[in-house]
C-alpha cells in the first residue's frame, strides 16, 4: 500500500483529559458576561492562565532547542543530571525523631559527672532503621544519636546506601545567622554494628533550632537532613 493510499486518522483535538474547570460549567452556550460574572470570571481566568502557560512553554521550547540538545551537554553535565534524576526519584525518606527527656537527661548527667565535667552524655537508640537497599527489608542499618544537651533530634535519611559513607561536613547551623555553628558532629561506628550520630554541644551554645545536611562522601549528593532543637 502506498503512503498516499494509507488511511490516516484525523489529528485528535486533544491528547489529554480535559480538566479545565471552565468546561465543567460550560453547557456549550455563550452567556453574556453581564448576566453571569461568576461564569465569565472562570472563563476569563482560564483564558489568561492558559495563555501564560503557553507562553512559558514556547519560551522553554526555544531555550531547549538552543542550549540543551544532546550534543550541547558535556559528559559531566549529563552525569550530574542523571544523579539528580536518581535522587529526585528517591523521595521516600527514613525519618527518625527522638526527644531527650529532662528527667532522663538529669539521671544520666548525674552519672556522668564523676570525671568532674559538667558535660553529660545522653544516648538515645532510635527504633527506626533504614534498609541498606531500597527493596531489601531484611538488611537494615540502625542509627543511634548521642547529644550532650536535652534536645529534640530529627534525622531524615534517604533509604539505601551505606551509613558509613555519610557525613555532615558543614555541621549544623542555627536559624539565627549570628549563632555560631555546631561543628562537632560526626557519624561514627557504634556498638552492635549501628551507626552513631554524635553531637557535642559547647556549654555556651545559644538556644536555637539547628539544621544541617547529610552528604555522601563518595558522590557529594545530599542524602538527608538533621535538625536539633535544644529544649533548654
Amino acid at each position, binding site marked *: 500500500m502506498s503512503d498516499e493510499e494509507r488511511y490516516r486518522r484525523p489529528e485528535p483535538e486533544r491528547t489529554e483529559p480535559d480538566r479545565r474547570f471552565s468546561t465543567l460549567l460550560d453547557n456549550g452556550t455563550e452567556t453574556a458576561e453581564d448576566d453571569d*460574572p461568576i461564569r465569565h470570571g472562570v472563563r476569563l*481566568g482560564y483564558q489568561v492562565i492558559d495563555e501564560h502557560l503557553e507562553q512559558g512553554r514556547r519560551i522553554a521550547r526555544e531555550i531547549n532547542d538552543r542550549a540543551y540538545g544532546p550534543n550541547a551537554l558535556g559528559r559531566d553535565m549529563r552525569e550530574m543530571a542523571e544523579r539528580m534524576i536518581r535522587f529526585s526519584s528517591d523521595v521516600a525518606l527514613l525519618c527518625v525523631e527522638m526527644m531527650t527527656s529532662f528527667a532522663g537527661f538529669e539521671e544520666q548527667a548525674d552519672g556522668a559527672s564523676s570525671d568532674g565535667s559538667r558535660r553529660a552524655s545522653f544516648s538515645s537508640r532510635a527504633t527506626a532503621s533504614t534498609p541498606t537497599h531500597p527493596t531489601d527489608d531484611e538488611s537494615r542499618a540502625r542509627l543511634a544519636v548521642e547529644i550532650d544537651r536535652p534536645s529534640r533530634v530529627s534525622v531524615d535519611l534517604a533509604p539505601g546506601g551505606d551509613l558509613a559513607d555519610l557525613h555532615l561536613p558543614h555541621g549544623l547551623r542555627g536559624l539565627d545567622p549570628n549563632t555560631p555553628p555546631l561543628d562537632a558532629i560526626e557519624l561514627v561506628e557504634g556498638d552492635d554494628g549501628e551507626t552513631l550520630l554524635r553531637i557535642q554541644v559547647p556549654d555556651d551554645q545559644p538556644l536555637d533550632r539547628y539544621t544541617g545536611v547529610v552528604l555522601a562522601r563518595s558522590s557529594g549528593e*545530599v542524602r538527608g*537532613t538533621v535538625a536539633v532543637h535544644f529544649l533548654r
Partner: protein
Amino acid sequence: MSQTPGTVTTQDDLAVVREVLAEYGEMTRAALEPYLPKWEPRRHLYDLIADYPRRGGKMMRPTLCLATARAFGARPEEALRSAVAIELLHNALLVHDDIEDGSEQRRGRPTMHEMFGVPIAINVGDTLGLLSLRPLMDNLWSVGMRLAWRIMEETERMARESAEGQALELGWREQNVTDLTEADYLSMVLKKTCWLATIHPLRVGALIGSRGGVDVDRFIRFGFFLGAVFQIRDDLLNLTGDETAYGKEVGGDILEGKRTLMLIRLLRVAAPAERARVEALLGLPRIERHVEEVAWVRERMDHHGCLDYARGIAHGLAGAAAHELDLAFEGVPASRDRRFIQSLVTWSLERAA
C-alpha cells in the same frame, strides 16, 4: 456566609486560617529579626528597614510557604529561611511600590517615603531586597546545595514576573491607557501579585517538602486563581474597607489612577459623557485629582454595579481555585496545613483587612 463554588468552608476552617497565620507568622517574624542588622548607619538605614516588617502584616506569603512545605512532610525549620526571604523581599517591594504609587499610608501608618523622603526610602527598599539574599544562601544549611540553588532560581523567576507586572501597571498609568479589558487586568495581576503572593510560596514550599521531587508547575494555576481572588478583594477593600483595619487610605486606588477591575468595568459600561469625565480625571497628575472627583467616580461605580460585578468575578475565580487546589495537592494527605491552604480561598474572598 457566602459560599464559594466547589468549597464547603465553615467557621472552623476560617479559625484554622487565623490560627495558622498567627502561628507561622510569629515563627517567621522571630526568624526574620536576626537578619536585620543592628549596627551603623542606624538612623538613615537599619532602624528604618525594620519599620515595615514590624508593622504587623498578615504574613500570608511566608505562612503559605511554610504550610505547603509542612503539607508535603517537611519540618518547619527547613522552610523557615525561605519564608524569611519571601517576607523581606515583599517588604522591599512594598517600600518601592508605595513610592511608585504615591501612597500615603501602609499598615495604618505613613509610608516610608512620606516619613523620610524618596531617596532614603529607595535605599531602604534596595537594602531590604538585598537582605533577602542572606536567608536564601543560608538555605544551604537546611536543604542542601541542590535545593538551595533551585530556590534561588525560583526567586529569580518570581522577581522577574513581579517586575514585569509592575511595569505593565505603571505603563498603563503613564500612557493613561483606558481601553483595557478584564483579561488585561488579570494578566497584570498574575504577574504583579500572584507570583510573589501565592505561586512562589507554594512552589518553594512544595520543593522543600518533597525534596525537589514534585513538578512545581502544578501550582501555577491554583496560585493564580487564589492570588487573583486576594487582589480583587484588596481592590474592593480599598473602596469599601474600614481604613483602620485595612491600613491604607480608602479610595486611594482611584486617586492613584490604578486600573482595577471596577475601574475597567466603569469605563466599559459608563455613558460616553461619564467615560470622558473619568478619562480626563485619569489624565491629570495625581496632585490635581481632587477628592470630589474621586467621590464621583466611586458613586458612579456603585451606580453601575461595578463592585458587585467584581465580586461575581472573584467568586468565579475562587471556585476555580478550589478546583485547581484538588489537582495541585492530589495525593497529599489531609493535615491542618492542607486545610489551611484550602480555607485560604474563602478567607481571601471574605477578609476584612
